[in-house]
């Protein structure tokens, strides 16, 4: 049941990306190109999503369990550190290079775009490197 629900939530997310035009990397890059001919559409995508999200977090933010009785897992971290800023900075450079972030990467995979598939593979490699590095740092040297 949860599996089907999770699939549907992902599907709605993906449909939202296609409807909004954000599945097209060139459109995302046109947003990031403020010095060229600028396409502000991405602001409207975020505005629409945040309008609904804001209400959802007002409703759900104070609950201990979800409406299906699942524990609420909302991040509690408060500190703004080098990991947050450095990681986000690197992410932004990658985003600017191709105009693809993780969500649209999987949508492009579904479009059957070869470059979308390669992006997703590289994304997984990047995440794997992160896991390997953080394990290396966490474990004491033998």
């Amino acid at each position, binding site marked *: 049941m949860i599996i089907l629900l999770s699939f549907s939530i992902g599907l709605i997310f993906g449909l939202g990306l296609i409807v909004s035009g954000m599945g097209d990397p060139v459109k995302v890059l046109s947003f990031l190109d403020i010095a060229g001919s600028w396409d502000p559409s991405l602001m409207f995508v975020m505005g629409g*999503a945040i309008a609904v999200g804001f209400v959802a977090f007002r409703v759900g933010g104070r609950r201990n369990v979800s409406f299906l009785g699942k524990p609420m897992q909302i991040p509690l971290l408060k500190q703004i550190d080098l990991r947050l800023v450095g990681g986000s900075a690197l992410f932004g450079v990658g985003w600017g290079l191709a105009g693809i972030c993780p969500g649209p990467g999987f949508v492009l995979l579904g479009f059957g775009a070869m470059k979308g598939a390669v992006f997703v593979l590289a994304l997984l490699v990047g995440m794997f490197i992160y896991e390997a590095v953080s394990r290396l740092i966490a474990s004491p040297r033998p």
Partner: protein
Amino acid sequence: MSIDWSHFTPISAAAGGLLIGLSVAMMLLLMGRIAGISGIVGGLLRPRNAGDAMWRLAFILGISLAPLVYRLFAELPEIHIDSSWLSIILAGILVGFGSRLGSGCTSGHGVCGLSRLSPRSVVATATFMGTGFLTVFAVRHLLP
């Protein structure tokens, strides 16, 4: 700066945004979780149990199959990937590594984090938008 009126699509952008918001709301209110794509994918590389992997895979399958479902009802919009293979590979690695190090991407920080007014997400979003702007500026206007 000049606005590209011929490609600016505020209505479909906002409509798609509302769908993304609905997905975020369902993930929070029903599953009790943040709809952050990098976190959901990254969790697969750090397996806890089979059930944990299953809902993550189902979500990713849902996103990936969206074009096929969309095609049942309407003609799919055209997509354009102009970046070189090398840029795509480098971009994927940076996006994967950076989003895990920074604990989120456009969905987790940009949509969910801003929705709940998280100061960390405001900083993260400003940072990745900033370096995104700078990267595109460098690639399109500085490099030959």
